[in-house]
């Protein structure tokens, strides 16, 4: 790469400033099997950045290695349902080196018939 001082290139700075929301992760992460950062490192990050607890789910899969999900989510969505959703709907969307941010909107309809 040529030194900037030595070239005649014009430099333009464009900034997009946005508030860093904390925690940066809403509901969870899907970690690809060949992601540059592993699940252990991610969990340590989450532990430092988010006060709420995240559950770690290991998956035997050729693309996905782990799912990190906010603990309260699993109160509304069963783990198996979540894993199936990820594998069926998200996996096709990601490569094994990627880490995807999950922002889940889970709606629970409660019906109750009382007598």
């Amino acid at each position: 790469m040529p030194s900037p001082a030595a070239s005649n290139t014009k430099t333009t700075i464009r900034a997009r400033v946005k508030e860093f929301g904390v925690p940066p992760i809403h509901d969870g992460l899907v970690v690809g099997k060949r992601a540059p950062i592993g699940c252990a490192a991610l969990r340590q990050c989450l532990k430092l950045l988010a006060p709420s607890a995240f559950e770690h789910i290991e998956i035997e899969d050729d693309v996905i290695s782990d799912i990190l999900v906010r603990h309260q989510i699993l109160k509304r969505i069963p783990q198996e349902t979540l894993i199936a959703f990820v594998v069926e709907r998200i996996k096709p969307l990601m490569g094994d080196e990627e880490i995807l941010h999950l922002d889940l909107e889970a709606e629970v309809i409660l019906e109750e018939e009382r007598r």
Partner: protein
Amino acid sequence: MTVHGMAGAVSSRVSRVFTDDRPGDLGQESLGSEAYAVFERGIPPDTDRFLGLVPNRMSSRHPTRIFADLLDKPAPPAISEDTALEDVLKIMDARNLDALSVIDRDTQSFLGAVTRTSLLSALLKRQGDLVRESRFLKVVAERESRRLDAAARQNQEWYRSARDLLKTLGRQEGSERDFLEEGLHALARMLDARYGAIGVLDEAGKMVQFLHSGLTEEEAARIGKLPEGRGLLGLVIKENRSIRLEDLTQHPESHGFPPNHPPMKSLLAVPIAHRGEAFGRIYLSEKRSGEPFTEDDQALAHGFSGAVALELAQRRELDRRRKTEIDLGSKTVQLEAIAAALTTFLRTQQCAEACAMLLSAARDHLASPDAVIAVRQEDSAMRLLLRSPAPLTSPDGPGAASPASPELGEVLDDRERRLCSLLRRVLLDARPVIVNQPTAETAGGPPREDSARISRFLGVPFFQEGRAIGVVAVMNRSDEYTEGDANGVQIFVDAVGMLYDGELRRARESCLETDLRQAQKMDAVGKLAGGIAHDFNNLLTVILGYGQMALNRLESTDPASEDMQEVVKSAVRASDLTRRLLTFSRRQDAKPTLLDLNAVIANMDGMLRLLMDKDIKICVTGAPNLWPVKADLPQLEQAILNVCLNARDAMPNGGIIRLQTENIVLTPEYASPETGAPPGRYVLLSIADNGVGMPPEILERIFEPFFTTKEPGRGTGLGLSTTYGSLRQSGGHIRVSSEIGKGTTFRLYFPRAEADVGERTQGSTRTKADHGTETVLIVEDDQEIRKIARAVLEPRGYKVMEAPDGESAMRILQESTGPIDLLLIDVIMPGLSGTDLAKTAAKLRPSTKIMLMSGYPGDALFQPGELPSEIRFLQKPFTIEGLARMARETLDAIGTTPPSEEV
């Protein structure tokens, strides 16, 4: 960190990292790491927790991840330090792992990591080590193989030697020498010894055998002598202990080697002993390898010597047992034979029969063709008691001075004389005599091969009260006799001795009894005869005196004169008989003088020969240095004459009369039974004939007065009685033995006399002083007296003429033209009396000298002065010397003649 079990398989290229470290952040020090050991940080720091290994392959693929995300899930197993490399490899292959952690089983702490590379390196290294080790082992194996080959060859040799040794030790047959020689050779071969030797000792510790190996016979011959037991060999023998020397020449006890002995340096000597009994020594010298003997060699030699000792002990014990068995068998046979003999003796009381059985058994026991039993007689002569297989026909044998004893050199053959000589030697030596080589004694001169030769002889004496009294002898065996044979036959000899001793004692008792009876009888007869004779003698003196006076008063032409002459003559004869009776009863006056019996017999020799018939020989054997005896000479001569005449009458067809003198000592066991005499020193005169002999019933009465076997008129029966009496009177004894058809022997025992000072032995002077050449006319009606007078005078040179009565004498005086120098006239004769004849003859031939003789004393026949002084008177019985001396003196007298004397 030390990992023992992994043996170098732990990789040195494992880096220690923490969970939050990133491979990409690691520095240069981690470059080249094969794996990373991931630890979780602990507080305090030394409490870091090992979590697992991340192989380089994984870290290099995710350099941005933290090592916590590179750990395998699930974590692979860890191995321990003692896990085998092969197992580690299997685990890696099975799980496709590049590295495995090594942890301590107890503490679960991390010790290191084994990577595939380090593992393979370790395996390769181990393989290399194995290869190197294999090469080393190969070299070692080759060397050991060579050593084992040599050892195998040695073992093979040992095995062969040991087999030979065991074969030798186990062999039962063969001689002791073969056994020792083979054993020695095998041992020397086993120990590789050039020389070996075994010295064998007898029970007294004396070396009796020396065997050697390694030396040729020529080399041994050059050395010559056997070890003398000095020096080192002597030390081994003396101390009975093992000796092992590297250089025996340096030992202070070494005495060097004899000339021509090969040099020896190393020595191994061990004793051969068993239970404290030493049998000998084993010596080994000079190992062929040049090395000294080792302790193993010594132990082996010691073991061998022990086996040899055991074998020798067994062999000797076996020998002893065999000998004992043989001895027992032999003893059994001997005892059976002895028992049979004793049974026979008890049944039959026949000593001879039992002795014959024993002799036969002894002969069979020693496998000898001939055997004899001989006994010593009281006169030291030998008497053959028995002979096996052929018994002697006569109980008397060579040398026996009995009538039955054959004449030496005539009847006995050479063989018997030599046998007699050998038997005497056994008795003299009083111990067994063995003669195996023909000598002059056994062969009778130069060695020769004939039937007369005694090829071999074994004689064993038997004893009575410590004195050899007999011999059992065996002869002519083809094998030599040994001392063992003498011992083997001893029991038979003892049995024979016992039987013979008993026989002697019985004989002694029997003789004593017989002697007592005989003595009592003879004493009674003697007293009776003596009393009668004394009274008769007194009566006869009266009869004779008055008869002679009556006869003197009668004219010769008176018819009563002849009758009176018969009365006087009978009275004279009766007087002679009474005189003999008095002699028998020992009442006759005797004038004992010191006498030489040899000289007495020599004096009588000529007379005796003349008295004998022409076919009777007289053999006189006088012992040299004969002891003197004391006896009345006339009585002694009469006694000898009586016995000789008795012998003559016992040989009507001729024969031999042997007179033999000798000095003998009668011991208590021989004294009474054989002689009737007490023990002491005696001069023995034996008078033996080989005439008709006498039966026992005659024998026991021959000394009784008036007992005669002659026809009436031929004997008075007083000859032997007077002999008996005169012998007893002189303190002597007489014994007689006889056998029908063989002969009779009279043995006259005279006590040895001690000469008093100045006393001179008589009877030994037969000088020329009583000799002459004149003519003597003997006028005597008793033919015996005529013969005796002739027998006295003729040997002394006189010419003798005889006339049985006065008338015959007158005719000779008238008719003879030759000179008659002396008339010897019996006073009492039928017809012309001696006195008348003397008177007539003095007138007829004045120069003829006259001697009168009578059995009656001269003073009873003649009044004092009645007998002319020139006529001499000779009292009968006259002695030889008396007759000869008076004849000479009468012839030499010139005119004046000494008064008549009783001679």
